């Protein structure tokens, strides 16, 4: 059977990459849920030689939303007069006890939207209700949210607020390298985030840590080109910012989009699940848009809600534990019964690994677990932990 041009190109890159990487062990990290998804969907790891590893980092905005903020969304959904609008991704993410789907089943008004503007329209159509939009996402999603808030202000909507949980990815990338926890040779940078921020924010990472940063798109060919560029840089001792997604990413990004974000939001500190408090990694509504802040309007209180005691999402997010190596993976934790967001969010590293990468030849072998982690928890252990209401 004739092979497509695409497949021939990809196989060619795979061969070149293997040759280029020969004799060196290399570890790269992608920090984008859609890259995690693409890597799984196209079986990219099957194209890489043994000495080149690709890790999944904290690129899933839903996964890094702290449990306490999810609990806020649940608290709002439980109110009679409130409609919670959200991207589909959030519906089954567990808070301390339940998720939005559970509340919806009990009569809460939860509307799934594709665009934040739909949330705005819901508010306009139902002036008697409070409409809250759960704003989760990285730099790609923030400009649409900013335009939506600005439009709400222009239209004088009084019943529309957002739960502002948008984050910035470069600070997390810096933290990962600075912590020294994970040995990384470079980053595969998120293609769509980069359409907004351009190449510049990665320069300090490349310079300070001597870590190549290659911006890549999401088709199989894009990912392979990006990985080849990373391998080539490491093999040649370079540490530059490179753009392998030029059909969509311009070096300067989208300044108009950044301007809107800057008008509505200001940089703030933010807590990331699994990473802790990262200075300057989040966005808060500016004072002049405070009326659209759900935390203020509903007087939401900070919480110390923690993770499920058997959940290792934090380590997965920091790249120190592979999904398939987590003791709970495919035992206590699976898409039907997720212990944490990495499994329930379709973007999460563990959900992607479960769907696409459970070993094709059989069950997971019992090979060396990272230090400090025992064997897979039994069903009794999980039940006992849940009942004791233990949190970390």
């Amino acid at each position, binding site marked *: 059977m004739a092979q497509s041009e695409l497949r021939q190109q990809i196989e060619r890159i795979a061969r070149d990459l293997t040759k280029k990487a020969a004799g060196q062990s290399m570890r790269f990290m992608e920090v984008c849920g859609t890259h995690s998804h693409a890597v799984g969907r196209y079986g990219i790891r099957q194209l890489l030689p043994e000495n080149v590893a690709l890790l999944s980092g904290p690129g899933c905005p839903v996964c890094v939303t702290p449990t306490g903020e999810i609990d806020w969304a649940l608290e709002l959904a439980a109110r009679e007069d409130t409609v919670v609008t959200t991207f589909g991704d959030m519906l089954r993410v567990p808070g301390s006890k339940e998720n939005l789907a559970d509340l919806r089943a009990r009569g809460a008004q939860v509307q799934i939207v594709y665009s934040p503007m739909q949330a705005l329209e819901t508010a306009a159509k139902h002036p008697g209700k409070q409409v809250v939009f759960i704003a989760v996402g990285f730099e790609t999603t923030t400009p*649409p949210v900013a335009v939506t808030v600005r439009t709400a202000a222009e239209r004088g909507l009084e019943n529309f607020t957002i739960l502002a949980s948008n984050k910035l990815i470069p600070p997390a990338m810096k933290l990962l390298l600075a912590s020294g926890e994970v040995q990384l040779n470079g980053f595969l940078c998120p293609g*769509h985030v980069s*359409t907004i921020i351009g190449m510049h924010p990665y320069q300090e990472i490349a310079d300070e840590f001597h870590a190549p940063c290659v911006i890549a798109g999401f088709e199989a060919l894009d990912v392979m080109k990006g990985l080849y560029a990373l391998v080539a840089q490491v093999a040649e001792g370079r540490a530059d910012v490179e753009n392998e997604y030029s059909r969509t990413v311009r070096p300067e990004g989208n300044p108009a989009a950044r301007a809107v974000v800057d008008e509505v939001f200001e940089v703030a500190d933010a807590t990331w699940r699994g990473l802790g408090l990262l200075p300057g990694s989040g966005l808060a509504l500016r004072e002049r848009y405070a009326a659209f802040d759900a935390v203020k309007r509903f007087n939401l209180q900070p919480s110390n809600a923690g993770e499920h005691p058997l959940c290792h999402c934090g380590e997965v997010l920091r790249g120190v534990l592979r999904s398939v190596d987590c003791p709970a993976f495919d035992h206590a934790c699976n898409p039907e019964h997720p212990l944490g967001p990495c499994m329930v969010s379709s973007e999460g590293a563990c959900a992607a690994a479960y769907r696409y990468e459970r070993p094709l030849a059989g069950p997971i072998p019992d090979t060396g677990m990272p230090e400090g982690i025992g064997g897979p928890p039994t069903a009794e252990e999980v039940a006992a932990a849940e009942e004791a209401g233990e949190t970390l």
Partner: protein
Amino acid sequence: MCVAVPAKVLEIEGTRALVTVGGAKLHAQLELVPETKVGDYVLVHAGFALQVMNEAEAEETLALLEEARQLGSI
């Protein structure tokens, strides 16, 4: 993240465009790329166009994908 797709602009009315992705049509807001013209390829995410794409490269990618999907029979 994020799920975003290349879409061809069919019509523009004010700040909103009608775009097409394969056989699907949807609306996309243009506030973030006001210079968009009919016939452009734009990257669409969450109901918004984020960037005008390089047309030649976009079409090349689409052609490659199209060929790869067609070619197959056991």
